[in-house]
């Protein structure tokens, strides 16, 4: 390759990157319309299956019982599993909704994702603790098994421990009213 040609190719590179990126974005937008690509409610292969097994340590000093796999295999009643982190803004946004569920007696189990224990503790101390049980996934291994897209992410499991619903993003009051509550009622019996 002559230096002149190499120079030409190098100067063509930005265009190539934009073209490739544009094609991918176009694919995403098409996917958004057909429902194949959804950054919020990523359709999970786990829907309809039991939750993956995990064995995680507790959040030291949080004074919340450890969340073990045995707690949801099966849970005996519908439960919410929430992946969160103290560094995540949407987690602050959805926090009141989790508190509301917890006050109503719905078991909300938490997994602190890639978060230092002292930060997790601080978050719960500041905002209140909605979690009946809590585990710590600092390396993010269990999150990979669950297919977590990013925090916050929320799962609804039925009484048999089958994953029925998954939501990536902050649980807003609307999501709580329109999706979670009807599902809880449906799987309550």
């Amino acid at each position, binding site marked *: 390759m002559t230096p002149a040609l190499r120079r030409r190719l190098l100067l063509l590179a930005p265009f190539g990157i934009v073209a490739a990126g544009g094609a991918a974005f176009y694919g995403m937008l098409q996917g958004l319309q057909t429902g194949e690509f959804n950054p919020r409610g990523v359709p999970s292969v786990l829907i309809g299956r039991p939750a993956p097994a995990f064995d995680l340590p507790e959040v030291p000093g949080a004074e919340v019982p450890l969340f073990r796999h045995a707690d949801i295999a099966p849970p005996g009643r519908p439960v919410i599993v929430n992946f969160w982190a103290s560094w*995540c803004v949407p987690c602050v946004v959805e926090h009141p909704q989790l508190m509301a569920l917890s006050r109503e007696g719905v078991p909300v189990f938490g997994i602190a994702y890639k978060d230092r224990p002292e930060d997790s503790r601080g978050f719960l101390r500041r905002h209140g603790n909605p979690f009946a049980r809590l585990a710590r996934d600092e390396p993010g291994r269990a999150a990979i098994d669950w297919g977590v897209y*990013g925090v916050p992410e929320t799962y609804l499991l039925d009484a048999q421990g089958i994953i029925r619903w998954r939501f990536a993003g902050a649980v807003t009051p609307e999501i709580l009213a329109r999706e979670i509550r009807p599902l809880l009622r449906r799987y309550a019996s």
Partner: protein
Amino acid sequence: MIAEAGHFALALALALSLALSTLPLLGAARGDAALMEAARPLSHGVLLTIAAAFGFLAWAYVVNDTTVMNVVQNSHSLKPLLYKITGVWGNHEGSMVLWVLILAICAASVAAFGGNLPSVFRARVLAVLGWVLVGFLAFILLTSNPFERVWPPPPDGQGLNPLLQDIALAIHPPLLYVGYVGTAITYAFAVAALIEGRVDSAWGRWVRPWAVASWAFLTLGIAIGSWWAYYELGWGGFWFWDPVENASLLPWLAGTALLHSAIVVEKREALKIWSVLLALLAFGLSLLGTFLVRSGVLNSVHAFANDPERGVFILGLLLAYVGGGFLLFALRAPAMAPTGLFAPVSREGALVLNNLLMCSLAVVVFLGTLWPMFADFLFGVSISVGPPFFNMASFPLVVPLFLAMAVGPLMPWKRAALWPAVQRLWAAAVLGLLGFLAALAIGGWNPLPLLGFAAAAYLIGAAITDIADRAGVGRTTLANAWNRARGLPRAAWGAAIAHAGVGVCLAGISGMGFATERIAALSPGQSVAIGAYEWRLEGVRDAAGPNWTSRRATLTVLHNGQPYAVMEPERRFFPIGRQTTTEASIRTNILRDLYAVMGEEEGGRAVIRVHYKPLAPLIWIGAIIMAAGGFLSLSDRRLRVAGGARRREAQAGVPA
């Protein structure tokens, strides 16, 4: 009628923009002066029509015209007048109208004040701005018409999003848009230069004021966004690496690189291809931000109403402008030969290093923001990228950046020796050490913030050294040095002030590392303390505003046992949107923030969270100082287009 008039004004603006995007180019190609001159009245006409459209839309908001869909969705008769007006750009459609309005203002000012640009070049720049206007006006008219009617009109609007009724959030978008639109101007200069196939030092001089202005506005816009997050989200953080925040940071990084590399183009005619690439890139990243925020491919709390159809349109615009720009670049750039040569260790070398580090930072932010999306789309793999990644990846880049920032301005052009420049920084180094020790004595051992304080003091010291060195302090009498310092070009002062602003901002960020907080459930009369400060709860009472009710706590702050201030944090409830917001109460004396938030109430006790945040205000003061440095530099006589043109004529007179 008003809505139809506004709609018509937008359509008229589109027609004028179409003319603006073609006639001057035709004129430039044929050498037809009359066609080229048409660019000026056309751009004034576009401004007039878009300003009229914006005015009509604002009027519909002010009179709460509920036959207009946009007003119904985003306004309410009970809103205070100020927020009715700012509500115009608090939504997707209105914000696009503001966007094109600012673009039209910039285009008209290029037309009005660019009298000393070569007429062919000016015609091409305005035509390129015409293309951008055409694209965005078509986008508004075809997918986001703000003047859509609704019949029968509902009794009142629904839009009272309490989070948007906030002064910082009201001025944040216009500032950011000025910054984004500024990148459109540098883009137009770059494309016009590529069409001509010629980039010279004059190009660097023309581009730089726009790059500096765009950068300064982006700096202010980002700072205000961060300030909003600090006091409104109620947990005391100031930067969350949220994708939408990152989307505004990306053009800022590219713009920072551009305004530095344009100096090299102007002074040394080097880095020409690179600067053109940066100008294209900065606009591309601005558009990317627009695309990400408005298309729905992103999962963020800040995102606008999402609509894939709009996404396709913006993506088309992005590909046309940026892809087209880069294609032109690939065709024309190989013919542009670098002329000014320089040694690696020189002012140019330092600016190249700045560019490399800025671009590496941009790559880190870009990948961290977009990679999860692409990985999910291409491979179906879900990965999550959070602040731990950004902090870890950007740290090794900002350390050399701070070191080089201090040394660069002290080095001569072309060829320099590193050691003399470093030697001149001894005072700054001593200041850095003092900063470290002072922070250690006051705050205790905490390595990262301590290093931050050292770097902050070092940067401020280096900025002072830069000015002192130019003024000849130590080589002449103090009075003489003072006079020389006053006579220094404003661009030199601007650069030093902006660099010192980075130091001030860094000091604020480091101060956050020493912040402490307490949370307690208090009954009236009880108190909670941090250090010498004690917050005593006097009581909690009901309060009401125009469209909210609230529970407001009254806290008496005692400093060493003496009453010092009263803080009233509250929780506001907005019945129409059924939303609750936290209004933090902040008392500042510039050197520290006292920050109080009220939580839930239970059994006569209220949960009160208090923070003591040393130096926190410096984060935003630093950003304001940075922007002030930019504006000062803008007022430099040398940067004014007229001044530049005079020099250009002088240069042209010299036989080659």
